[in-house]
């Protein structure tokens, strides 16, 4: 039996989660320091993939990155054929999960008490150091929760992945795609098999992630209880 959907799903979800954690946290960190109406508009853009149906997200990405577009053509000229590649699957999952991480990271960063940031400033710390040494460590429980959400959602992405990455067994056919096409073909047995595998992976991954975050949260929970 071809086990490639399992491997592809894992690779894609991990890559998407890593990318989104980095980008989402940085975007949230930047946004927390810049307030004002103009930035609220930016929020709308950041959160758009959450509001749109995944298929629409995939379609918009295809419009943006496909060879029919200026950008896509440019990338193609540089030798980057994104559509129908594994990278497309990662991009699709990353775009649909970005809003989740962004929102969670913002909430986590904003709940860090302002006096802590301010006193760090008076002690000579620049914004980068404050972000690294004050905000990130104290926002950790929230960020970890965001990572868990992101991974779960990335694992289950279908619509955007199908349109942008296409259904290519061994290259872009993740578990959700394999399940869908098994159902289309009337192969219920295969569909059930893949579904069970997906459930098993999700439970295992989420369980492992939860254990790890609880361990780290346990350390910081002790210290968060200020007098």
């Amino acid at each position, binding site marked *: 039996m071809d086990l490639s959907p399992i491997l592809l799903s894992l690779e894609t979800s991990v890559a998407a989660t890593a990318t989104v954690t980095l980008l989402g946290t940085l975007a949230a960190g930047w946004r927390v320091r810049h307030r004002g109406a103009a930035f609220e508009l930016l929020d709308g853009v950041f959160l758009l993939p959450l509001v749109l149906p995944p298929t629409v997200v995939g379609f918009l990405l*295809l419009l943006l990155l496909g*060879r*029919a577009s200026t950008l896509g053509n440019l990338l193609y000229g540089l030798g980057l054929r994104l*559509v*129908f590649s594994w990278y497309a699957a990662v991009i699709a999952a990353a775009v649909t999960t970005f809003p989740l991480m962004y929102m969670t990271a913002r909430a986590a960063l904003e709940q860090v008490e302002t006096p802590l940031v301010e006193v760090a400033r008076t002690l000579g710390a620049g914004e980068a150091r404050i972000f690294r040494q004050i905000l990130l460590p104290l926002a950790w429980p929230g960020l970890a929760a965001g990572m868990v959400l992101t991974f779960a959602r990335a694992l289950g992405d279908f619509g955007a992945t199908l349109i942008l990455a296409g*259904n*290519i067994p061994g290259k872009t056919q993740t578990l959700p795609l394999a399940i869908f096409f098994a159902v*289309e*073909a009337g*192969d219920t047995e295969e569909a059930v098999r893949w579904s069970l595998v997906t459930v098993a992976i999700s439970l295992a991954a989420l369980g492992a992630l939860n254990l790890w975050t609880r361990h780290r949260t346990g350390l910081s929970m002790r210290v968060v209880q200020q007098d």
Partner: protein
Amino acid sequence: MPNRRTALFVSLVLLLTAPFVARVDAQQPQITVAAAISMKDALDALEKRFSERAGAPKVTFSLGASGILQKQIEEGAPVDAFISAAPAQMNALEEKGLLLAGTRRDIAGNRLVLVVPAGSTAVKTLEDLKRPEVQHIAIGEIRSVPAGQYAAEALRNLNLFDALQSKFVYAQNVRAVLTYVSGRDADAGFVYETDAKSTDKVTIAMPLPASSYSPVVYPAAVIRNSQNAAAAKSFLEFLSSPEGRAIFERLGFTTPSK
């Protein structure tokens, strides 16, 4: 200037009576035809011409993949007629005794073609597909999309399937194949001639040799449990009439030589 209360009241009255008004129209017979989505353009044109006839029943289409429509009919979906994109689904229904005897006929045929993005000259023959510049070939998912089945059958008979398999991108329907090729993300694709003719964003490189695949025929039949069998029959007869055939041919279908 009517005040808001009045406007609201009138709207409410209209809303509540609308169903009854609609029912009045239903003196005229209505039929629901389940049809393969690949026939959409043709069916729209045919229905328009059909409705010009006096006393013609109103036709509503339920479009979808032939396989799914077949399953819905098996589960008792209330359709009056079925037009499938391949014989297999119709055969399944016939075996189960779900068709009204004597109403099954082939109403049109189609041909499989190799398409490339409009203006592309890189691929002219099937052999060209083997070239390294061709990286992605869009094809319908073989197990569930009839056009994909036909294409796979043809390529196997032509001993090209194994060589090209690694380049395939499997789409969930023919329209998706068209989108991939017209957007130039796929370098080539397999679609029906009718699909290729429906957009100027793709060019037909060549038709697949007719001998390499089973004929693509669209069977149609009245469903045995239909409440409007006579009306359904009259529609199918229209499809087989010279007028109907003309419309099919105009859109690129072939018509059975009957």
